[in-house]
């Protein structure tokens, strides 16, 4: 099982700098040129998939994490998103964030027993990195929902007959 590391409330994540100083730090730039979209011909066998929807915004999102045999961090993170441009930008940003995690600095392992609730990248990191308004927070929440879905699967395995739609 993939053991995904994420920062905790007390942890320091190297990606916080990315969040603060992202040179392509507006949602428009990421929306127009995302670098982590799932390729049409991608072989996702064995990948973890976290899904989320935002019915009010007619949006749906999937985050794909490739397992890494000898590492606890995701080797590859990809997304598929149908929704407003902010959602696409947020999905691309979280994928870049996840791929940039460094194991020595991480102190949460998803799936490990006795782990506290991890702290996802806080909403204000998204908002600063992507220059998005608080009114577009739905996109951040959708990303966090997708990550929570992955966390759940890491701990308990995929739900039977799980229907994210």
């Amino acid at each position: 099982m993939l053991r995904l590391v994420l920062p905790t409330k007390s942890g320091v994540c190297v990606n916080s700098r990315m969040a603060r100083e992202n040179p392509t730090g507006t949602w428009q730039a990421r929306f127009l040129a995302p670098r982590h979209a799932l390729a049409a011909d991608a072989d996702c066998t064995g990948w973890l998939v976290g899904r989320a929807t935002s019915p009010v915004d007619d949006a749906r999102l999937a985050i794909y994490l490739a397992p890494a045999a000898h590492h606890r961090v995701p080797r590859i993170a990809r997304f598929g998103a149908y929704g407003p441009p902010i959602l696409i930008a947020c999905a691309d940003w979280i994928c870049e964030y996840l791929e940039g995690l460094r194991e020595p600095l991480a102190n949460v392992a998803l799936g490990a027993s006795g782990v506290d609730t991890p702290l996802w990248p806080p909403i204000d990191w998204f908002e600063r990195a992507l220059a998005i308004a608080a009114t577009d927070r739905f996109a951040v929440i959708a990303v966090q929902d997708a990550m929570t879905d992955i966390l759940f699967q890491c701990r308990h395995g995929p739900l039977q007959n799980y229907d994210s739609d």
Partner: protein
Amino acid sequence: MQNVDDRSSEQLIEGQHAGAECGQTILYLDHAASSPALPEVVEAMRESLLQDVANPDGTHAAGQAAAKRINWAAEQVASALNADSSALVWTSGATESIDLALTGSMDFIGGGHIVTFATEHRATLDVAEQLKCRGSTLSVLGVDENGEIDLDELEQTLASGATLVSVMHVNNETGVMAPLVEIGALCARYDVLLHVDAAQSLGRFPLDVDAMNASLVSMSGHKTGGPKGIGALYVRPGVGLTPRLRGGGQQAGQRGGTRPTHQILGLGAAVHAARVAGPAERERLEFLGKRLWHLLAQTPGVILNGAAASRAPGFVNVSVDGVHGQALLAGLTLGDPALAVSPGSACSAARGESSHVLRAMGYSPRRAAASVRFSLGWTTETRTVERAATRFANEVGRLRQLAHGA
């Protein structure tokens, strides 16, 4: 009208659009929202600003000179309606004209039964709703899937007793045209006032207030290559209006405030140019619109809205399967080349809504949201629509790819 080869829409926007990013090309296909001012309009306004220094209501020679030039503009606009120029009231635009027509007439009468249609512009629907709150009765009639009204339903409604019918000649989102002569005949049969919203058709189509039995006709300047901030209302002699702007008593007390000579000259010049261009320009826009739709239709899942209806040349409103409306609009307008297009209408976008017109035509909220209106005009060239169609196809493909796996 200046040869469009001299000033393509791209050159025009690159040179004048302050909002464009450095080096960004904007393909302007939003003439139904606002058409760039024609060169002769700019020149007429420049001359007027320099020469017409006096208040046109002044009794001295300078004032009379300005008034004379306004009279020339009034002749141009009135000729486009086959009306008398003395029946025009200058306003700030179609929104004010519609408000004056509906509120002014209903206030004068003391309220009544207003009949309009679900695909009307918000300028009409919002005012009608306001009048309803003030005691009038309101009937908003539906349309079919092509955006066409049901004349039988209209007649039944009029037979039950009505005071005023308000209908737009050319729908600002789909370009679907209303059968004004038939509607006017029904209004005449039941002795009902007819208000026509001609914001999208002034100068582009020959209008005849007598043939369509119109009591009131609202017009806009900037939809036909004139300046923003000027419009007009035709008021048939004998039709009473309670003014909305009272101070000053200008325009026979129907609309207070000093007449903006240069704006009016600009509107007159625009209508004159449009009428000179006339059928040839309509034919050119018809060709370009068909060319655009032919190219857009190469992408699977693109649907022409109002396809089976009689539509004005230059309107191509499409819905797209498999892409999110907000992403589609952002992708088209933020990318390079950027398309200046609207999601239905600029006014719907300003309200943060999907198109009420397409929803009234029975389309799902998703389809209504994933719609784009291309509206062509005097700056549009063949290469403009070809580049826009290529850009559109690429963006739809990109967004569908992003949605893959979601």
